[in-house]
């Protein structure tokens, strides 16, 4: 059995000697505060290491590369690119793609990469700065590829990425992780920036744009720009939100659940459970705080000592290792 948030809250209330609730709605203020503290403690413990109980996997299908030769630029800012092949842009996804459009302004900007947002199946809004003006003729060459994919909100850290080709022959690739600098350097050395093939590299980069909570969602970048592929990835998930009016299960296994409790109790004894709020009982609470903190540390050590958590390999991309070396040896970053 896994422990629920209600059960944890009841345990915490009993530990600090206040009435315990039978449900998660209509909590008293101390009960509500304890539920938040349990949530914070749970998240803190889950964030400490790549525990096996956080391992997860998922998949998505890529938006395929497309190109054409009949685009036109309309509008006056924001500008619109029209005449794309139907289905090139996908609502909600195309924001994360890149396009190059043939230059018509003699400014030598034919390789300029612009970001496009979906407007319709055949038109997109140019989001990047655009100083080439409009172009009514439908004769511009264009190339579009979507290299970035916003991962679901429950993805905390990506562990591995596989890519299965949906093309002329079966290819099942284990993608290599690289830094964004390395990925851009690879692209810059190609004849065409938006180069289309089955991806070989990935980079887990910035968080997605938009309002909360999407701005805490990871973005996975692929290179080369993919054609239609199925991407399967393993990850460590974000822990369940314990501060919840509905019943949810803690991710931390039962054998270490007392660490979650003790972490919350330490927060309680150092705030609400001490001083005037705690009344006469508060006088003993500094000692109880020391006790629960010690217990918390002990259980955490047991948790980190388990081979499946403690033996996780530290991984960096080779360039990061080089930068770390220079920083350590020369006291500066490059």
């Amino acid at each position, binding site marked *: 059995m896994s422990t629920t948030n209600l059960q944890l809250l009841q345990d915490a209330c009993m530990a600090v000697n206040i009435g315990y609730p039978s449900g998660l709605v209509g909590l008293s203020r101390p009960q509500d505060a304890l539920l938040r503290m349990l949530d914070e403690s749970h998240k803190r413990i889950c964030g400490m290491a790549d525990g096996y109980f956080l391992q997860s996997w998922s998949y998505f299908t890529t938006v395929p590369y497309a190109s054409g030769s009949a685009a036109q630029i309309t509008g006056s800012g924001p500008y619109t690119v029209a005449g794309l092949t139907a289905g090139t842009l996908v609502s909600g996804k195309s924001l994360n793609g890149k396009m190059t459009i043939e230059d018509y302004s003699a400014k030598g900007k034919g390789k300029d990469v612009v970001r496009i947002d979906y407007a319709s199946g055949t038109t997109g809004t140019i989001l990047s700065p655009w100083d080439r003006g409009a172009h009514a003729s439908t004769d511009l060459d264009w190339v579009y590829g979507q290299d970035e994919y916003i991962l679901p909100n429950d993805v905390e850290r990506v562990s591995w990425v596989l890519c299965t080709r949906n093309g002329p022959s079966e290819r099942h690739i284990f993608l290599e992780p690289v830094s964004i600098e390395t990925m851009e350097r690879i692209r810059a050395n190609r004849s065409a920036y938006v180069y289309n093939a089955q991806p070989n590299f990935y980079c887990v980069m910035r968080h997605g744009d938009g309002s909360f909570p999407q701005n805490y969602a990871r973005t996975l970048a692929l290179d080369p720009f993919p054609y239609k592929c199925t991407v399967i990835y393993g990850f460590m998930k974000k822990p369940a939100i314990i501060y919840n009016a509905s019943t949810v299960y803690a991710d931390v296994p039962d054998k270490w659940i007392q660490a979650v409790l003790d972490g919350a109790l330490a927060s309680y004894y150092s705030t609400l459970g001490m001083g005037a709020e705690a009344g006469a009982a508060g006088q003993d609470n500094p000692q109880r705080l020391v006790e629960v903190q010690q217990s918390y540390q002990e259980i955490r050590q*047991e948790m980190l000592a388990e081979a499946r958590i403690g033996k996780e390999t530290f991984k960096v991309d080779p360039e990061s290792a080089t930068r770390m070396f220079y920083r350590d040896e020369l006291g500066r970053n490059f």
Partner: protein
Amino acid sequence: MAYSALDLVNIMLQRAGNYARVTTLASPTDEALYLMRQLDYCHKRICGMASWDWLRKSSEIQLYPVIEGTATITGTALSSLSSTDGDLVYDVATDPVSPYRYAWVQAANGSGELYRLTAVSADDAGTLNDYYGSNGSQAVTIAQDAFDLPSDFDRPLNADSFVTAPWSMRWMDPEEFLRSRTTNGRRTSFISQGKPQNYTLWGENNATAQANKRMRLLVDPLPDVGETVMIHYYKKPPDLLSDSVYPVIPDKYSDVLISFTLYRFFRDRVMDLNRAGAQKAIAQQELQVMLGQVERTSDRPSMQPTNYRG
């Protein structure tokens, strides 16, 4: 005589200050409820502390074979699967989660694309994550490489060797395992059938249903016959939340369980740090005795110095 969960709670109620006994854990007093919950947590915590011989268990895992046959694919719906290798083993009454859930699917109409079977709705029907070939009846290959571990699986017997079969099997790190069967791992075809030689573990903890959140055993090559392999592991202890459940910790160590639980009761409920300290000292001392008496057998894994709370 071994103590049941009810016995243990009543013993602790008495030692904690002559609190009233309870006749059943189904309707406990506040003190009994707190002791019962902490007893359960302490029991599980002690079981997770070290490589206890009395938690060792072996269970069989049924591998399911690659299915080669014909099926109709329309959109992402797969139906009318027909094969002499077997079916998708789906029975909503007894086994609502087919062992072929998330199996790999390769269909003839197309260019050798690989899909995932995201749901199974009957012995011969399911749903693909996507589909790019032409609709219609065609040859299909359905291959499962990930299998549920026993529901009481807690951790493997050894960190890097815990599955045996009448042939040789080798543990691999998850990334090494996944890389080995890809094109850049020099595999020309992903669907490679045979006796599984390599295995690893990866979790499915983002599953929607709580019951499906568990570790899964991944094997490679994909099983051609679907034989049974044996997994060796430390089991999860039972929940000590009902009257007649017994701890898995041997009787002779009951004091450790009682002292650990009373430590928390005195610390939290009674706010008596002297008695809490005394119970903790006893628990620590008894734990050292327990660790010193771990039975030694020829295949017992070496204990890691940091793998206990000494």
